[in-house]
Every structure is written in structure tokens, then in C-alpha cells.
């Protein structure tokens, strides 16, 4: 069992309080996933030619000044890449760096400078937080309540298919501005993982949900819309799933053809909210007047900004 939350703001209103709205939603679904949690938050884009990189650094020196340590790293990377690298945010687990959108160059230079660093998400809009522990503690540790933006997704994990580690927690964000959170279990993920590997697309964990994220990433890279990519998941992947998948401009949900895992959608003039259980959205403003429904089996819903 896992919990899914998502909030897609249609208007400017509430953008300043995105994090403050998302945190209690995630906390409420601790009952569905107490072992890990994560979020993807979409904010205004960095300039063209650059990406935000959410970087986890495992061996930050606890005695040293993290800000200085990250600043040194940014400077080194700037020199390596020949383009500016800045630190947008220091996080307890690392930093959000703004660097060139040449992802391979950035990640390989980063790996040389800091072998203990992992890019958990990248794109012009997205910041990704993945952690192990209670959702409430994770939100507090990462100061999620202070985050602003136009869209956010979150996940509370109760691991069934693979280990409880930060890498295994959701969201999975293998492509620029793509994030996937999953409630369920895919049964043929090993087969699909092998097929993707033959095409040069490699997973970094043995997690079943990562395979779906990479499959969607491949489809989007080939020019598919998110809706078409989700149809491919329905065709190629077997198992139980409720998926919430987002890009810089799309916010989409789908449930498997048996509707084995729950999902509730609430829509108002101001937002689209999705949660595994209605109780997790009762903290939202204006929820009493929202149109509330459940997607039917296999039905794909996409909202675009």
C-alpha cells in the first residue's frame, strides 16, 4: 500500500502556499505509507539553457559549513563545465543547483567531483525530494511548507516490491521535469526493465515503479504526449497501479483496468487535487464546493497548464 497526493493549481492563487497545502495532505496519508516519502514541486522555470538539479550528497561533512561545501562544489563544476553553476537552495540532504541543461555533462562532472552525489530530479521547473522516514518528519526536515509553485506531487511509501532506501522512494524523475508516483505493484517489471536496457535505458534501482517512469520517459523522448505514454504503460506493463505523472505542463492520473488501487479527484476553479483517500484533501480550501469523483478503470485524465 502507498499514498499519493497531487495538487495542480489552475490560477495564481495559492501558489505562495503550495507547500503549506501539500504537507498536511502527505502527512494524512502516513497510514498508507510510513516508511518513506517524497515530493516533486514545480515552480517558475530557470532560464532557458539551464536546469534545476536536485542533488543528494550522502557524505556532507556534518562538522563543516554545508553552504561553503556546496559553494565550492558549484565553483568546481562551473570550471569543469565552462558555464555558470549556482546554488539555489541548500537542503539537509544536499542542494538544488542551477546548471547547464546538458544533463550528461553535468552528471558526469558531478560524479567526478562528488562520487557520493546523486541527481534525484532535474528540469527547468522541478525540484525533487526523496527521503526515508515519516512524511511529517520529511516535510519538516526539508521545510516543504515554505515551498511555492504551481504544481506538486507527493508519495508515502509502504514498500512491497523492493528495499526501503532513499533511492527506492518516490517520486521517480528520470527525465527533465517528469515525475511519477505509484500506488500498486507491477508484476512484469523485470521483463520491461530488460527490454529498456536493450534500448540503452537503464534503471538505477530494482524498484518496479522506476521501470514505469523510464518507460514513460522513453515515450515522451520519442515525442509522445503524456496521455499516449500512459496508454503505453497500460499496454506494456502488467499489474496493479494508480499513477500520478506530471511534466512541466501536464498533470495526469490513471488507474489499472481493475481499479485495484484507490484515487479521488477534486476539481475547483482554482485547483485539481488528487489523493488516494478523500480524507487527505479535506484540509484544502474550498474542498466543500469541489467536484469530487473517482477515475474509472483505465480512464486517463490529463490537466494542462
Amino acid at each position: 500500500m502507498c499514498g499519493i497526493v497531487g495538487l495542480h493549481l489552475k490560477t495564481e492563487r495559492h501558489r505562495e502556499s503550495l507547500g503549506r497545502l501539500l504537507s498536511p495532505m502527505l502527512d494524512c496519508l502516513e497510514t498508507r505509507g510510513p516508511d518513506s516519502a517524497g515530493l516533486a514541486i514545480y515552480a517558475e522555470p530557470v532560464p532557458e539553457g539551464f536546469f534545476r538539479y536536485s542533488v543528494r550528497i550522502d557524505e556532507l561533512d556534518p562538522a563543516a559549513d554545508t553552504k561553503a561545501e556546496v559553494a565550492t562544489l558549484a565553483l568546481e563544476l562551473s570550471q569543469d563545465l565552462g558555464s555558470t553553476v549556482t546554488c539555489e537552495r541548500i537542503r539537509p540532504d544536499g542542494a538544488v543547483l542551477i546548471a547547464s541543461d546538458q544533463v550528461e555533462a553535468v552528471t558526469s562532472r558531478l560524479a567526478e567531483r562528488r562520487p557520493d552525489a546523486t541527481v534525484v530530479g532535474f528540469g527547468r521547473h522541478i525540484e525533487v525530494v526523496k527521503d526515508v522516514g515519516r512524511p511529517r518528519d520529511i516535510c519538516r526536515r526539508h521545510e516543504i511548507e515554505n515551498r511555492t509553485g504551481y504544481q506538486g506531487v507527493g508519495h508515502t511509501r509502504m514498500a512491497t516490491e523492493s528495499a526501503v532506501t532513499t533511492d527506492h522512494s518516490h517520486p521517480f524523475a528520470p527525465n527533465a521535469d517528469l515525475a511519477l508516483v505509484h500506488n500498486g505493484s507491477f508484476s512484469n517489471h523485470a521483463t520491461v526493465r530488460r527490454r529498456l536496457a536493450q534500448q540503452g535505458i537503464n534503471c538505477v534501482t530494482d524498484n518496479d515503479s522506476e521501470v514505469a517512469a523510464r518507460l514513460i520517459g522513453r515515450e515522451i523522448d520519442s515525442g509522445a504526449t503524456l496521455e499516449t505514454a500512459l496508454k503505453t504503460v497500460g499496454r506494456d506493463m502488467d499489474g496493479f497501479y494508480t499513477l500520478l505523472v506530471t511534466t512541466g505542463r501536464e498533470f495526469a492520473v490513471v488507474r489499472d483496468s481493475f481499479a485495484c488501487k484507490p484515487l479521488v479527484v477534486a476539481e475547483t476553479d482554482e485547483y485539481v487535487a488528487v489523493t488516494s483517500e478523500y480524507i487527505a484533501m479535506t484540509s484544502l480550501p474550498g474542498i466543500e464546493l469541489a467536484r469530487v469523483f473517482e477515475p474509472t478503470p483505465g480512464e486517463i485524465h490529463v490537466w494542462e497548464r
Partner: protein
Amino acid sequence: MGTVTDTAPESGVSSSVELDCAAMSTREVNAALHALPAGSRVRILNPRGRHNLAVALDQELEIEIAGHAGYFIGGLCDGPSIEVDGFVGWSLAENLMSGTVRVRGNASECCGATAHGGLIVVHGDTSSRAGISLKGAELAVGGDVGHMSGFMAQAGTILIGGNAGDALGDSLYEAVIYVAGSIASLGSDAQVEDLTEEDVARVRSLVERAGFDHVSPENVTRVASAKHLYNFDALKEQKY
């Protein structure tokens, strides 16, 4: 303990009680309900999607849940009359033994799962698997039901005032389903059968108790087991 308000008792009726979810945990609400004498009337306030309200009660109470509620509302109950003024989540009245559970809005998946007795009324729609493994209760849905409704239902009656989704009545046993609207598709071993006078009387009684005014008992479709999959010759004369 949170808010428990005894309001003025009406003549001949036990006192009316208000339990406020905003001030009480689910466990406190249920403990307060269990402690009430039979005949009490209760309002549960501010449910706001709360799960497991009014479960496993075995005395005759009149309970109103004033708002939307979550999963397992009225589950395992044996006696009370429960009404929800809103919508509910999964597994409404699961394993109900007796009494009435009524929802004014919609109900999510697995509504009335394994219910042995009593009456479950949903005035709106229910989603997938309504009446799954029903074991003797009556389930009346005013609107539509989702796919796989009546799956493996063993005994009891399901009335659908609207349309039925795919695979209705898959692997039915002795339960009978009546549909006022359309049927997207029948499940394995489910078949449409002629409506008898006995069926009409059964539907009329259920429609009256449900309070539906949009279902004509003579104009429903009877769906029951074709008994091609349901072979229990080896167990003949035995109860299952």
C-alpha cells in the same frame, strides 16, 4: 475525551447525543457509540472523510453522520440504523449483519462487501465491485454501479436503479441482481432471466424501503447465475 453533548430528550425516545469528530479520535467516537443504550439517537459531526465510523455496533441506535465519510462506514454492524448525509469511501457496511445503512451521496468501491444481512441503500452511484461476495443482505443503489458489481455474490439481493458497468454478476451464486437501466456487459456465468411475479414483489418491497421513486419494479432486468461455473454436486445438500 472530546465533545459528547446530551441534548434534551424527546418524549418516549432516548436522549439524543452529538459526537464531534473535530474533537474526538475515531476510537473515542466508536467507544462512545458502543456505550450508548439501545434506542439512542446520535449525530456524528464533522466526519470530513474519517474512516471506520460507527463500526461493529450491536445495539439498535439511530446514527446520522453529518457529512462525507471514509472507508468501512457501518462495517460489521448488527442492529443500528445509520445514515450518511454525504458520500463515503471504500467498503461501506462491509460484513453488515443486520440494520440499515443509508448513504445520501455516492459510495466508492466494494460497497456492501460480504454483507450477511440488513439493508444497504446508496442514493447516488457506487463504483467498482458493489455487493462483492454478498452473503444475504439487500443492497439498493439508486444510481449507477461500477464494473465487477455482484462479483461472486452468494446470497441476497442487489437492486441497481441506474446503469451497471462491465462484468456484472461475474461468478454469481444464489444472489439475484435487478437492474433498472442498461448493463454494459455481463460477467462470466451471469445471465438475464425472465422476471417473475415473485421478483416484482421482491423489487417493489426493496424500492419502497429504499425510498426510490425512479424505479418501476415491473421494468427491471433480472440477472442470476447460469450455473455453468457454479457446480457443487459433490457438496449436494451441504451448506457452503
